[in-house]
């Protein structure tokens, strides 16, 4: 369970408050206008920015002051999810040993994770020798191996084509189910939300609102979301 207890994020004139709870196994999309603070909220949960006030609790533990690597959060960023000078299997192996002193067993586990995301036999390749979609899969394999309680996605598939993105989102949903993680996903596209998230947190006007069912929210959006979505609300 993730609890944001009176959380305040400030940077210059920007401010965002969040006071909400997210259940285990939840799959949640963060939706809202650009600059509303979706990514910042995710960064605060991941430990990359320090909140001005409030607490972040994961399964009852206060992690507000915990270093990013020590939090039960795995984050996939927009870019830079892989080290280009390390092979795929090494990138995945970092989930087990941040110092990369991998045992035979660690290496096998990393290979197995690559296998699971459909990259069997590609462990020796460096990211430059992989396509964009394959690179995303390597990062997902690492997340799978990390087995953290929260999986935070900051639009990691924004650069992929629609079909590839849909496939990756399905894979993400599977990974989240397998690890039992809470899935938090920033997106600009209501279709992404419909595809894998059961609930939506609306981030707008300086606040992140409590999660609401995706279908209901998108079918009858509040004015701020309606303005943001425009015609994208009812595709096809």
């Amino acid at each position, binding site marked *: 369970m993730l609890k944001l207890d009176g959380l305040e994020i400030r940077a210059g004139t920007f401010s965002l408050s969040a006071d909400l709870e997210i259940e285990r196994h939840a799959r949640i999309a963060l939706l809202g206008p650009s600059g509303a603070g979706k990514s910042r909220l995710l960064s605060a949960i991941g430990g*990359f920015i320090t909140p001005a006030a409030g607490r972040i609790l994961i399964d009852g533990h206060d992690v507000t002051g915990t*270093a*990013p690597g020590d939090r039960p959060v795995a984050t996939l960023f927009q870019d*830079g999810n892989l080290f*280009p000078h390390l092979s795929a299997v090494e990138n995945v192996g970092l989930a087990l040993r*941040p*110092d990369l002193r991998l045992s035979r067993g660690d290496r096998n586990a990393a290979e197995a994770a690559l296998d699971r995301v459909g990259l069997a036999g590609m462990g020796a390749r460096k990211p430059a020798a992989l396509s964009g979609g394959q690179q995303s899969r390597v990062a997902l394999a690492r997340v799978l191996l990390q087995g953290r309680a929260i999986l935070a996605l900051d639009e990691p598939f924004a650069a992929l084509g629609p079909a590839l993105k849909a496939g990756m989102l399905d894979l993400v949903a599977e990974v989240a189910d397998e690890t039992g993680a809470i899935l938090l996903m920033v997106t600009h596209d209501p279709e992404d939300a419909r595809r894998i998230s059961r609930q939506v947190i609306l981030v707008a006007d300086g606040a992140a609102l409590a999660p609401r069912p995706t279908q209901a929210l998108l079918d009858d959006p509040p004015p701020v979301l309606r303005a943001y979505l425009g015609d994208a609300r009812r595709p096809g």
Partner: protein
Amino acid sequence: MAGHPQPLSPRPGIIAALSVLAVVLAAFGAVLWRAEPGGGPGPADWAALRFTVLQAVLSAVLSVALAIPVARAFARRRFPGRGTLITLLGAPFLLPVIVAILGLLAVFGRSGWLSALLGLAGLPPVQIYGLHGVVLAHVFFNLPLAVRLILQGWQAVPSERFRLAAQLGCGPREVWHLLEWPALRRALPGALAIVFAICLTSFAVALTLGGGPRATTLELAIYQAFRFDFDLGRAAMLSCIQVAVAGVAGLVALSTLPEGGFGAGLDRPVERWDGATPGARIIDALAIAAASLFLILPLAAVIAAGLPGIASLPPPVWRAAGVSVLVALASTVLLLSLALPLAATIAIRRRGWLESIGLLGLTASPLVIGTGLFLLINPLTDPFALALPVTAVVNAVMALPFALRALVPGMQDVLRGYGRLGLSLGMQGAGFWRLVVLPRLRPQIGFAAGLCAALSMGDLGVIALFADPERATLPLQVYRLMGAYRMQSAEAAALLLLVLAFGLFWLCDKGGRSGAEA
């Protein structure tokens, strides 16, 4: 970035900065303490100050003025080998001063090529010693730097402007007024100031081509007070003057120097439609040919003169070469252990006082630091026994600003690109250094190491103060051979020095770049 968690701690960099500061301040402090309050500067000291400023002004103005047509030609011409030539413009920076001096003597000296040509026409030979020799050598070293700085200013003009100018039918005159002159005006103060600052503290040129009451710089006067008279009080007093003058010049240079003034790649293609007239073509071709000849001929002379004697070099030269390589390597290791943590701290903090610490090397004169360290060591032990370690330390401090310029932008990229990922995976400190920073920064580390190794290899500064007959580096050995009029050995040793300096740079640079992918 400040305030956010970082995978690297700023502390080692702060320790490195404080160590550098401590060495420099301790040296300055020793100099100040030793300078006798009663004995103010005498007429000879004022003359040294006047000559120092005069030669630096002349060198700066000439270097920059001559650089303008060359840079203009490079800016508006595309031809095969252009990139190579621009890269070669960086070479004098690595070139040991003593090697260039021998080359310049072979071309412009009394019995050099130019004098021989003049002799054919029945004219007297040229005289290279004195003010004009010092200025000639300084122009040789700083013309390429000025060309690069000015070219950088011009290449910063977006190519769309030139397209627009071409579309509006602007000729060379209009392009000059509309585009070239405004960009040049921005680049000129920085170029003038940096060349001025470099020439103020240049020592080896004055040592070899200057001298005598009419051509003595402050640095040379410090050396003479130290070596010939062992008048530590006077050396200290001169050092104080030098610190004041060079400090002011350095600050002015830093405040006017455009960003990334020592950056490499200057070959961004900007299409130019102006200057297509035959006259402009001829002028540009002449400018590039003249500059290339001026820079290449002395090097060719060293190679031609040195080759025959290289097989029969006396054993002391080989010994000195070994010593120099060891000093260069020690200096490089020290440099990297200072520059890497310092670069990390600067990248984390973005701005602050740390950057200026790295730049102490630009303004501080090696001879002043050397004098100060001598004063500090003298009561404890025999300073001459520590000549080589002191040389290595001073060379590392001198190379620090250049190393930081190479390392900091790369370090910022690494932290921006991979800092969060490293943090989220729990990589911190040594682990992040080993797995991320060192592999990602290999090319920049190799370049910085090569730069330091080459500069240290060719350095003829502190070692001239400290060395006794048993301990000589290769540049000092070349200087001694010159002083003994053993020119053939000197030229051969200079060639060896040239090969070693460029070889060390090449090895480090190549080593950093090979195998560093994506």
